């Protein structure tokens, strides 16, 4: 420490002291003196050491007269008109070289690097020298990287200490989620959680930590750790268009990370993918990932690894979202400007999450800029959006608020066709988020979200639906190794369909679900080998399953209101991630969930040996409010392991069981606003799923290319399918029309991803099957004779290519290509006449397929110039969606018209769609 100061002082004095009185001067008269002799003279007079290459100066003779001149001036005169150059360092050593002068002053930081293990540390960032040095360094290198942090006081008992803190964006102060911090020797590492928090337990000593993450620049911190300590790390945002920056985000995570079946996207990756209306759409991007499909275009219902659309837990800052789409699925309901990351768990679902069988889609918003006020927005062909963010208290609390609205209503009213003028279609969404750091140990986060849609389309029927969520999180750090988060969340989803044109049957159909939940999650890092998560949650559901009410006095519609449903879903979980050795890590988790269906409600009991129909009701039981009508519970196992074969390849395996107590009933195969969510009850059992998966991961070309092969086998029990001829809307005894089905799904997913270089992107191929069997009950309840049949979303082959090419800092282009097998459908094949009525003969369920799906899109992003000081930064996105104009069928359906049944194919995008979007940021 002392010596470092000394060194700095010497360095400084050599600069500052230049030309001062204390410096020795040179006096002499030299006449054709050989250079070597001249040097000896100077050395004698000034006590400097002069180094030179005799070979370079053997023919040089010096003629010079000087009186009391400083050494530097003398040398300057002497070496004039020669090829020799000189340099003087801080210790008055002179280096004479041919051609160019050497840099005799050491580069700042030279010593830290050059003296490994030296115990030099402790400069404070506000040191003057520090700032000087920073100013001279490239603007892309953080000064903090070269500083040695000496942290902690005294030796901890046993030598193990904990280092914890946050990784934050240096510009906005927002946390960086999922960044890894690790030391290579000894090999210890972890990644930040949703708060940007990390905690490492490790022996005291000196470490060189590397920090990597999506969307941030790689950085490092040198730390001498003496005791438990905190280290807040600020990282710089990775500005992709700049050529100097190479994206290396988590480049080895594919191989070394524990998690399998996890796809993680940050907003920058998502922005590059072309979409139909020029607006970044997270669900569209998620759909390009292997193992994720949807039944059709314009639908954002996800089918993950052969699971149904209701088997995905969509969390928006911890609140459940029931309908993640706008405009029947043209847009996803999340404003891209406010999003930070999207994580999709397809297998090895952490024990923390539960309640859905197939996947967890976790969407996190940004926290808002904690340092300065800023905004951004975009103008597209159908929608515009605006985001404002800024600090409330600098560095401690921030807000972000973002809104998006369509103006299609305005366009419709200007169309000449009368039926269009009578139409209306609009949606908007608003998200607000506030974060506040109370002190070092406590922070709170609040999010509110509202999204709503409304349509009236050339008819008398108005469709409307609404998502509302709110969540409040309190995070408390007990110690560096232990913290907890308490979350309360509320979600509401509802829709109504109003028909007003004909006053005789004017009516409104309504549906709503409310979910209130509270959860406590704890993370404990006892030592570097274990990461323990545990906690519990409980959520209360209130469902209004449907009501039809007359509108106006003239309406003859009889009111029909279905009885409400209530239920409580609770769970406890614990999981431990154990790093057994450098090659093998294991994660063991157990979740135990419990569901109670609650009164008040009437429950029908059916004859046990017969098909459930209205006629087989044997008893009606009336439960009063709060009475438990049915209880289901069971363990959910979450196990995964990783074994590193080599430094750049690994094998991961996982097994998980999931249970689901809420079921979606939809009479179209896609997610549409008229879906009904139904709780498990006395007659409807919860769904249970088991998934086994194994994957091989390999990074190629020094981690620039990630390749993986994952295969899985899944069994599903008791998920709901419909009996032949089911009626799902306004059905008082829905259990008579649905059956508990079994399913199996299996597949292979191959993904090759290149995230660096001028050309980047990914290509994936998926082979998967998803099959259903309804074999229980009477023959009338069986479907396709009790044989396995393809599910609605069984699309065996799927190829996706997302490619980006960067021409220059300002121009980049992207290409998107998708092919998949057409989805299965049930077709009417013929008519026949029986029982005085014409009937339709249908094929076996899902025996046919719609034509294959094929689409290519292209987009060009044009960035404005990159001057730092500018009022607003802007960019243009120009694109063409469905470049080939192929009419991919969204649905194939049949209508009875004038006694004839005709088939139609509906394609949503029948020709190429050009789009232009303007984005700005200030």
């Amino acid at each position: 420490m002392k010596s470092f100061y000394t060194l700095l002082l010497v360095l400084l004095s050599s600069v500052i002291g230049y030309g001062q009185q204390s410096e020795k001067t040179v006096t002499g008269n030299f006449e054709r003196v050989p250079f070597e002799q001249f040097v000896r003279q100077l050395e004698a007079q000034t006590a400097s050491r002069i180094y030179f290459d005799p070979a370079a100066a053997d023919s040089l003779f010096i003629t010079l007269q000087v009186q009391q001149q400083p050494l530097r001036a003398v040398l300057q005169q002497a070496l004039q008109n020669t090829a020799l150059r000189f340099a003087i360092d801080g210790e008055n050593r002179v280096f004479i070289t041919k051609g160019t002068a050497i840099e005799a002053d050491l580069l700042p930081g030279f010593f830290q690097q050059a003296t490994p293990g030296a115990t030099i540390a402790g400069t404070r960032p506000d040191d003057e020298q520090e700032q000087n040095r920073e100013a001279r360094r490239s603007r892309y290198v953080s000064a903090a990287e070269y500083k040695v942090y000496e942290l902690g006081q005294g030796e901890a008992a046993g030598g193990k200490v904990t280092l914890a803190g946050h990784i934050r964006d240096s510009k906005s102060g927002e946390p960086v989620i999922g960044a890894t911090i690790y030391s290579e020797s000894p090999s210890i590492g972890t990644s930040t959680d949703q708060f940007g928090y990390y905690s490492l337990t490790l022996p005291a000593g000196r470490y060189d930590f590397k920090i990597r993450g999506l969307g941030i620049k790689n950085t490092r911190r040198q730390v001498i750790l003496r005791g438990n300590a905190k280290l807040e790390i600020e990282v710089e945002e990775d500005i992709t268009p700049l050529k100097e920056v190479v994206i290396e985000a988590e480049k080895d995570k594919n191989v070394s990370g524990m998690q399998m079946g996890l796809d993680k996207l940050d907003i920058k990756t998502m922005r590059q993918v072309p979409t139909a209306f020029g607006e970044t759409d997270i669900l569209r991007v998620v759909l390009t990932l292997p193992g994720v499909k949807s039944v059709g275009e314009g639908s954002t219902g996800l089918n993950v690894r052969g699971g149904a659309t209701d088997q995905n837990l969509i969390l928006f800052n911890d609140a459940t979202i029931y309908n993640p789409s706008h405009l029947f699925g043209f847009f996803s309901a999340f404003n891209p400007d406010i999003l930070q990351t999207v994580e999709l768990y397809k297998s090895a679902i952490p024990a923390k999450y539960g309640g859905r069988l197939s996947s967890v889609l976790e969407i996190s918003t940004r926290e808002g800029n904690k340092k300065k006020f800023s905004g951004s927005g975009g103008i597209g062909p159908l929608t515009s959006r605006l985001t404002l963010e800024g600090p409330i208290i600098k560095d401690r609390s921030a807000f972000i608020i973002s809104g998006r609205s369509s103006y299609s209503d305005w366009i419709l009213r200007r169309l000449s066709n009368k039926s269009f003028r009578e139409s209306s279609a609009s949606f908007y969404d608003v998200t607000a988020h506030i974060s506040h750091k109370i002190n070092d140990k406590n922070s709170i986060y609040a999010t509110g979200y509202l999204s709503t849609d409304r349509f009236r389309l050339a008819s008398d029927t108005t469709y409307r639906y609404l998502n509302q969520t709110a969540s409040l999180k309190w995070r408390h750090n007990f110690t560096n190794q232990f913290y907890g988060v308490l979350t309360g969340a509320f979600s509401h989803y509802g829709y109504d369909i109003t028909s007003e044109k004909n006053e005789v049957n004017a009516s409104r159909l309504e549906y709503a679900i409310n979910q209130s939940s509270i959860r406590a999650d704890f993370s404990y890092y006892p030592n570097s080998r274990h990461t323990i998560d545990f906690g519990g949650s409980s959520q209360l559901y209130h469902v209004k399953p449907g009501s039809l009410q007359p509108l106006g006095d003239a309406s003859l519609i009889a009111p029909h209101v279905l009885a409400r449903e209530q239920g409580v879903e609770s769970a406890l979980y614990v999981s431990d991630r154990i790093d057994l050795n450098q090659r093998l890590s294991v994660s063991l988790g157990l979740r135990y969930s419990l569901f109670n269906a609650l009164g008040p409600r009437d429950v029908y009991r059916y004859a046990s040996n017969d098909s459930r129909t209205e006629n087989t009701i044997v008893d009606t039981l009336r439960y009063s409010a709060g009475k438990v009508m049915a209880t289901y519970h069971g363990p959910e196992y979450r196990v995964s392991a990783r074994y590193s074969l080599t430094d750049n390849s690994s094998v991961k395996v996982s097994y998980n069981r999931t249970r689901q107590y809420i079921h979606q009933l939809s009479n179209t195969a896609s997610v549409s606003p008229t879906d009904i969510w139904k709780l498990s009850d006395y007659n409807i059992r919860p769904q249970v799923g088991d998934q086994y998966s194994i994957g091989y991961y390999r990074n190629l070309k020094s981690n620039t290319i990630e390749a993986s092969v994952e295969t899985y086998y899944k069994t599903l029990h008791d998920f709901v399918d419909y009996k032949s001829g089911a009626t799902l809307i306004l059905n008082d005894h829905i259990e008579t029309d649905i059956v508990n089905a079994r399913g199996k799904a299996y597949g292979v997913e191959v993904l090759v991803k290149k995230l660096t270089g001028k050309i980047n992107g990914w290509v994936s191929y998926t082979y998967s099957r998803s099959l259903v069997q309804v074999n229980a009950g009477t023959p009338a309840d069986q479907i396709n004779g009790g044989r396995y049949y393809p599910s609605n979303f069984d699309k065996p082959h799927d190829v996706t290519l997302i490619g980006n090419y960067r021409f220059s800092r300002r121009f980049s282009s992207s290409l998107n290509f998708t092919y998949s097998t057409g989805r299965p459908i049930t077709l009417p094949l013929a008519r026949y006449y029986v029982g005085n009525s014409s009937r339709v003969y249908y094929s076996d369920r899902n025996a046919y397929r719609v034509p294959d799906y094929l689409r290519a899109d292209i987009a060009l992003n044009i960035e404005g110039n990159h001057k730092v000081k500018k009022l607003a930064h802007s960019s243009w996105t120009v694109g063409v969606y469905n470049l080939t104009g192929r009419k991919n069928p969204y649905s194939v359906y049949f209508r009875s018209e004038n006694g004839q049944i005709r088939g139609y194919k509906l394609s949503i995008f029948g020709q190429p769609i050009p789009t232009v979007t303007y984005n700005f940021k200030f």
Partner: protein
Amino acid sequence: MHPFISLRRVWWPWCVLLLLSGCIDPYLPEGVGAAPNYLVVDGYLNSRGRSLIQLSRTYRLDQNTAPPRETGATLFIEQQDGPRFPLSETAPGTYTSIPLNFSTESNYRLYILTAEGKEYASAFMPAKVTPPIDSVTWRVNDNGLTIYVNSHDDTNSTQYYRWDFDETWEIVPTIIPQYEFRGGDVRLISVPYPDVCWGNSPSTAVRLAKTTNLSQDRIADFPLQSYPRTSERIGHKYSILVRQFAQTREEYQYWELLQKNTENIGTLFDPLPSQLTGNIRSLTDEGEVVLGYVGAYSRQEKRIFISRAELPGTWPYITGYESCSPPDTVLMKDVLAVFRGGFTVPVEQVFYSSGAIQGYTSTTLDCADCRKRGTAVRPNFWQ
């Protein structure tokens, strides 16, 4: 019928809005273009009387004609390990047996040999005897009228019931034309239009009930048919002939599914597709699909009448001709042009205040001639 349109229908304005042309194209999926030509068997083996079987074929979805009849087939009722009884083709595609009396100890099936030489047979079904209908009753409530059926089986052997019915009602036109257009001119009517007709409709709905979860095999007040108070069918005099059939459990389930299989497809409130075939198999080609379910049981009938006078006086008096009045006037100069088509007919003369003929009031043929809505031949059962 629910007032909502198909969800799918709402798509198309969007396509136009987005300047996309041709979003909806007629589409015939591969393999569906050629409609399958399956044999369809409609009817039952009457265990106490004549059996009537209708044979037809499936036909294309986009065809709006009567189903093609299967003519020239040879049909037999076969008793298991016993004799067989022929059916004869009494009308194209309709085959009738002589009155038979099945043994309830035995099983029966229908055997079919089509004209092209293919053999089919239904599964052997136990012969059931349908218990008599105890009564057909009706009651009124605030909304309208409901007709109920009552039956029981002391031997507890029926349990599964099916009904169909025939409805007949009086039609009384409100406009009685005094004139007619004949020979290019309007003259006094020579043969007046009938002043009463009878409408008739067989039931297209399937009515089913079972008593398996009751301690007795008894049907009490099972609702068969309902009418709102504003229905024209109960405006004058109404009659319903209820037919009752005992079913086996399997046949009951078949009809339960068929009940949901209608032509209504594709809208939000319509039931999801159901597949069903029945109990008939091809003896020639195991994989061939044959549609229909042929059981063996007898038939019980009961007819009741309901006249307007029995219904509450506060109910509106509905004739079915409400949309016909008031009549329009056709001026003399337009007489030829208007009446020549035959669709519009003259009713009465209209005079100027001077006494000259201004023209004729007119109405549509549908309003004037009740034979457009029924038959003027009085049914022989009509009381």
